[in-house]
């Protein structure tokens, strides 16, 4: 029997997979025991007290037994609270980003997954990640809702247009892991598949180095097909010219945009206070807002400050910044976030 159920087991390929499975198993056995108590009781009563003749047998007058009902309720309450707490503890670990994570930008669009590394390397429906190193996916959607789901990791996060969501994981098994889109997104929802390839760290370094060298030499290897032209917007932007075939870092594109879009008029990157706060060393730190609350300047805060600048204004500044909603494309927002991130944190 146990062997039979093994064929339904998925590999445990992330640090969380084993923990999530442990709680799954606990709930499974709690459920199994409760189910058996009810069903065995039911079947036994049906057999033991079945009506034998046409006329019913006399039955006793029992209207309930409050102590039994209360004890069932109390025992159950304790069990479900334990399940809740266990689930919550593991969940907080799932959502906590590890310092020094390898960051990858992920864009879901009908019906493919795009990946962009911090060195500017882009891939479609396939991503390489090193084993044993924490990875943070910073995810956005170009159109409708999607959900990034890796069953081997037991992890999933919806991808929402107009905001960033993130998914943290540390892979512990090399090999190819299936990525599904788990949130219904239209015609080819079931074909929105990708592969996460987990490799040894050395192999990952080599994979990136080879590409970087090729790019700097202007080589356009066979990989060109997977790495370019899925992002048509960067080229038409005069402020971000391509420097030959040299790799374009998202942060560099962001720096060019920062000047081209006039951000420099109000925001320094040196610590000097102009009309707006300086952006030096802001990312990842808490800032005081003018309603006396505090917020951590993460990807979503930077994004929101571009699209809805009046919403959370830094303490001591006037709400005078115009919105860039509709002016900046999603890809450009990604680049600006990368630039602001690069200003030290």
């Amino acid at each position: 029997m146990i062997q039979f159920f093994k064929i339904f087991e998925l590999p445990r390929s992330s640090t969380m997979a084993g923990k999530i499975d442990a709680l799954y198993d606990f709930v499974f056995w709690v459920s199994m025991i409760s189910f058996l108590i009810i069903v065995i009781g039911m079947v036994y009563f049906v057999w033991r007290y079945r009506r034998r003749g046409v006329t019913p047998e006399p039955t006793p007058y029992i209207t309930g037994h409050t102590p039994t009902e209360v004890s069932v309720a109390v025992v159950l309450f304790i069990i479900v609270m334990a399940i809740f707490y266990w689930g919550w503890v593991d969940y907080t670990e799932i959502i906590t980003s590890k310092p020094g994570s390898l960051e990858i930008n992920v864009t879901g669009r009908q019906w493919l997954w795009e990946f962009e590394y911090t060195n500017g390397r882009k891939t479609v429906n396939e991503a390489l990640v090193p084993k044993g190193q924490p990875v943070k996916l910073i995810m956005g959607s170009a159109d409708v809702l999607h959900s990034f789901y890796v069953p081997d990791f037991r992890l999933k996060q919806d991808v929402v247009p107009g905001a960033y969501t993130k998914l943290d994981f540390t892979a512990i098994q090399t090999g190819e892991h299936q990525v599904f889109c788990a949130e219904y997104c239209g015609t080819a929802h079931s074909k929105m598949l990708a592969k996460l390839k987990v490799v040894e760290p050395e192999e990952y370094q080599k994979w990136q180095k080879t590409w970087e060298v090729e790019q700097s030499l202007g080589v356009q290897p066979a990989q060109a097909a997977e790495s370019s032209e899925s992002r048509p917007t960067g080229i038409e932007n005069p402020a971000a010219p391509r420097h030959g075939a040299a790799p374009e870092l998202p942060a560099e594109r962001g720096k060019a945009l920062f000047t081209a879009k006039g951000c420099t008029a109000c925001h320094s990157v040196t610590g000097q206070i102009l009309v707006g706060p300086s952006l030096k060393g802001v990312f990842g730190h808490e800032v005081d807002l003018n309603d006396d609350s505090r917020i951590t300047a993460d990807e979503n805060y930077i994004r929101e400050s571009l699209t809805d600048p009046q919403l959370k204004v830094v303490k001591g500044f006037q709400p005078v910044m115009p919105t860039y909603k509709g002016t900046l494309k999603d890809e450009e927002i990604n680049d600006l976030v990368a630039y602001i991130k690069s200003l030290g944190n």
Partner: protein
Amino acid sequence: MSATDHTKNYLQGGGLWSWLTTLDHKRIGVMYMIATMFFFAIGGIFALLVRLELFKTGPLFSPDTYNKFFTLHGAIMVFMFIIPVIPAALGNFFLPIQIGAKDVAFPRLNLLSWYIFMIGSFLLVLAVLSGGVDTGWTFYTPYSIRSATSVIFATLGVFIMGFSGILTGLNFIVTIHKLRAPGMTFHRMPLFLWAIYATAIIQVLATPVIGITTVLLVMERVLHIGFFDPKLGGDPVLFQHFFWFYSHPAVYIMILPGMGIVSEVITVFSRKHIFGYHAIAYSSLAIAGISFIVWGHHMFVSSQSPLANFLFSLLTMLVAVPTAIKVFNWTATMYRGSIWLQTPMLYALAFIFLFTIGGLTGLFLAALSVDVHLHDTYFVVAHFHYVMMGGTVMGLLAGLHYWWPKMFGRMYPEGWGKLSCSLIFIGFNLTFLTQFFLGKMGMPRRYHDYLPQYAPLNMASTVGSWFIGAGFLIMFTYFIWSLFKGAKAPANPWDAKTLEWTIESPPTTHNFHKEPVVTTGPYEYGEVKI
């Protein structure tokens, strides 16, 4: 109306027009039953088509066609069948009789509710005929704003049907408060009525929210006002909050009446007083209350805040307590009973078996970390089918067989009833038990095609759906047959104690010849005092 002979039964006399203008709660109940069972058949056909596509890998229908199939299956089953069927059909028929009244408090409003329901249904049918809808029954934004299909007809249909539910709920609440016969105290009401009462409260309070949500959606589609689409400045996750603020309580609109029927059937066929009347009655209200504050458990991976996830997971766990009390009490009721395994009882036992699985698998999904893995997989599909079909539909079928002799004065054929029940029970488990494993293996829901590792279980699941189909085909056939050829039903074939069994089968237009006076509770079985 005064010309009607009140000694006739409610089915006699008058043509189609007298039915369409009737103010008799029993006729309106029957009209609801015909409509909802027809929609159930349509929704069932869509379900069979969905399973047919998934029988093997590779396309049978185009992806867009498949997407419309599962959307229409969901939308029709939820809005046009499972929400109205028990309260509006069986509730309408038996609520006034069980409290010893002549009719509901507002008979004209009752008829209006039926027409509103039919107009809303017509719009949804129009959506099907004008190309279908492909958004899923949840209408998640921004997909539903951009989809080129008939979203507006479908959502307007949902909007209009909502009013029918609100008015029926209001009617029932007032009827229960104002029209109980002398001696029929709240604590002497059959548990079916407690369940209908709790349901009515949810319908009145929650349904307006889905109305508002669908209107906002239509305004966004037509006038391009940015509520939900980030391109227009909206927030897509806001829609999910609005949607589930209604649709989670709606889950209890669906299940509570089924629980009510099971409470009736178990006592009658065990000849035992219900175990823990007050616990079952008030747990219905407790579930209704909690149902309003757990909607966020549909959104654990939607990007809502960790604090919200903490609270929604915690509150969701609380639902387990009143629910388990009910299951425990039904089982305990059978202890030392005299158990009569007629078809209604078989369905009630099937309810306990299947609903227990449905309820327990809810624990997996309420636990935050496990839900991160299982959310939006076939595990969820299996879970809610165990609750909705294994629970509500089994409860409905128990009630339908239990009250069929009263409603139409004819007995259904017992042997065929048992056969059809067995087919449905076996087919159901084959169809949906397999889907728990598919979900655990990571197969996402709403997939037109799947990877090869999911093939064997999907094939088994589809074969199961054919058993269910065969079971229902037999049932529909013998129910219609019994209307003409079934044995004449006595007034009280089950020897039950509630008021509807004290009057003729089928009842006369005014139900009671003189107002009944109630002196005991509804389940006074048990000759042996202990």
